[in-house]
């Protein structure tokens, strides 16, 4: 077992974990952040995307021990009193149906806009290609990211 200290959604946690424990399972089963789901086992779908030290990562491709000392933000901690502009845009553009990919898609989109505040449609599609959605055909996800960009997301 390894000793780790991780800040998740603004709260500091100190835990003993198995070295092989995936970050996503640490978040879901140790910290209780079930808002971050698991959609695959090969890091293709992106449903488990969170921000680690400000960068989007697929939390199934990170070990909990690698997150030692990091600041992790999940979908549950993205809203700051009010919805994050990307969350609001997903609602307003109907960019989700079943909602299973949505936490990862929103986190990836937030990171995309941090890197590139005014992406073209092609840049949005390329930027989100690591996140799979089976419901929306991506049309409204692209619209939502455009809307969030227009609203001026910088964080």
């Amino acid at each position: 077992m390894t000793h780790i200290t991780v800040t998740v959604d603004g709260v500091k946690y100190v835990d003993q974990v198995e070295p092989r424990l995936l970050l996503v399972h640490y978040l879901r089963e140790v910290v209780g952040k079930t808002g971050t789901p698991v959609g695959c086992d090969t890091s293709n779908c992106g449903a488990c995307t969170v921000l680690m030290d400000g960068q989007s990562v697929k939390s199934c491709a990170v070990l909990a021990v690698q997150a030692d000392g990091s600041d992790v933000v999940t979908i549950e901690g993205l809203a700051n009193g009010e919805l994050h502009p990307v969350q609001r845009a997903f609602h307003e553009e109907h960019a989700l149906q079943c909602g299973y990919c949505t936490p990862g898609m929103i986190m990836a989109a937030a990171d995309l806009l941090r890197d590139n505040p005014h992406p073209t449609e092609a840049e949005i599609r390329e930027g989100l290609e690591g996140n799979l959605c089976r419901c929306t055909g991506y049309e409204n996800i692209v619209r939502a990211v455009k809307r969030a960009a227009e609203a001026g997301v910088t964080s």
Partner: protein
Amino acid sequence: MTATTDAPAAELEIGRARLRKEDARLITGQTNWTDNMRLPGMLHLAFLRSPFAHAKITRVDVSAALEQPGVIAAFSGADFAAEQGSLPCAWPVTEDIQIPAHPPMAVDEVRYVGEAVAVVVARDRYTAADALNAIDVDYDPLSPVLDIRTALDAASPKVHEAGNKSYEWVFANGDVDGAFSDAPVVVERTFRQQRLIPCAMEPRAVVAQWNGDAVTLWSATQIPHILRFALSAFFGIPEQDVRVIAPDVGGGFGSKLQVTAEEVLAVLISRRVGKPVKWNESRSEGNLTVHHGRDQWQRIRVAADRDGRIRGLDVDLLADMGAYLMLVTPGVPLLGAFMYPAIYKMDAYSFKCTGVFTTKMPTDAYRGAGRPEATFAIERIIDELAAELGIEPLELRERNWIRHEEFPFTTICGLTYDSGNYEAATSKAKELFDYDALRREQQERIENGDKVRLGIGISTFTEMCGLAPSRVLGSLSYGAGGWESASIRMLPTGKVEVVTGSSAHGQGHETAWSQLVADQLGVPFEDIRVLHGDTLVSPKGMDTYGSRSLAVGGLAVVQACDKVIGKAKIIAAAMLEASADDLEFSAGRFAVRGDPDASTSIQEVALATFAAHALPEGVEPSLDSDATYDPDNFSFPHGTHLCATEVDTETGFVKIRSYVAVDDIGVVVNPLIVEGQVHGGLAQGIAQALYEEGVYDDDGNLVTTTLADYLVPAASDLPSYVTERTETRASNRLGVKGVGEAGTIASTPAVVNAIIDALRPFGVTDVEMPCTPERVWRAIQSASSGGQGSAEEQHEARQNLASQGNSPQGIGEVPQSGETA
């Protein structure tokens, strides 16, 4: 008249692009997926799965697994032999159908890679997965059966003792031989519907908990009600002791319309160990063991006159059942049987489907279920007929389709299409697509010898949905009815609970049903809560599939509202000291005709009913009402989809340049939700055309077990869509048809027709799906060198390449459980 009744009607909710009520929890991570469940003392399951496509099990030894720390129990199939029964098939399509026993856990023999052979029960999921390595299983391998075209040969190895044929189902109407015997033109093609893997984003998950002699099962299912019935009817648990909960469910597309081995085993194991148990599949496990879709060979012949008039159609299908018949496996091709004639008039039609067993994962319903296959074949062969006759393909369609003034129209299959206007949808689609300009550009590229050719694909589709009139299901030997249930509960404070038997998993019922009820009862949208997906809360239902929720379940909701209003009217009359006959109900108020001051709201009636101080004699103090609606007919959405592809003839790469979808789905309750359903449907249909295929190797190993191998498209793989609507009312009271599957049904042939249209000058007449760059390139090369390039020939060529060692290689080892990180 009074101010109340003269006032402009409040804005109707039907037709409003309401933002969804569901979103609040889904965009903030406050969701309730089955895998989120944690119960005190809960144990975790991991399944050991067969690495062989076909083998006798000679020994299973779980003793070493039991030695592992944290392992509570381990079982093999033999441990459940007395109680596990057989997974149900609810659709015995013929009297002599072969329905083999399908034990949830294999006991003597395995028949596909991934079939469960043992299970570990452990303290946590990692421990359970680890312990699988300690289980020892001896197999005596048998020959796999992988090709439905040779599986019926006498020399073929057998999947089941009784042979590889499950059933043969036929339908015919009109003089088919006559239609073909002296027809000036006959075109015949064989099309391949590849095997698809549904890949809902939420993997399956199950939690089972016993409390005394009653069990609660949480499952990522589309069908909590059918599942409850099945657990009771087939596995011996009294129905009143079973509660099934489908919490938030992350997509289904038919794949969660199933009674699964893992659901049944979780219930049995939980009872055995006396603790709640959870199982959550990995994606690799899911690709192996969530039922697959499609997988047919379609031989289709059309007979026509020289002017293009269709005389007859003849369809002969081979359908891969996989190793067993699951819930509706044999019925899926039949849902297509009535759709091959599509929107076209003809004199004669015959259909035959042979269901064949193989040593692969069973197939079952996948978005569209039968209708995408039918629509693909008919829309593809109409293009082939157009090319044969030298008639513009849209013109050929128009010469044969049912004209708008001919509705209602009884088709050669005996279905009565209640409404439609193919002319209107096509005209709008052509305009949005700029059809004539694209045809000109296509010609220019041909004349210039451009290496990137333009193709235009057409799909003037229809489908049958709104499943279904119970009497029709009965006539097709289906094991249940097609009604839907709803209840309206008027709460004392004037708020409303709507209980629906259709079980949403992304479709937006909570929003759309609120809109329906707001209009009917005149209560605010915000004052309505929709309850679903728990058999304790919603005890009756037939669940969600077949684009049925609105066209059946929505009608039940409206019917229940009628009953509420009927009851409220009697009480309102007493409150207003008037005769009920003199009251009219509008926008949530009962008013006495001719007396502007005498009115009361339905909320006031609800409160008065709750108090029950002054109800008329004999009137029950309740407005709550139930309704069960059984539709008179299917509904028949239709539309015209046009796709422009740019095909690079040097690389075989296909780019969708534009896609226009004009759909007539009847009256629209929420255009935002409808558009979303169309987008998602298009993506899934395009994915079949270009990207996805479930591939088994020559030994029967699935090689597409991950999302790296099975290509669910990403945003960068798909185009932006232009979607529009035309509207004819369905004959039901709301005028609604259904939209969940339309996009998927329509888009696959639109894309493939566009590819063939681009390549026809090279002599290409088919490309086997998915139309990968390699397949497109090979089709061009083959046609250029004088080959025919039919799907079947392309398939053979590819198989030959594969057996020479050039096949895509899958992973070397069968994943056996969840979290072997």
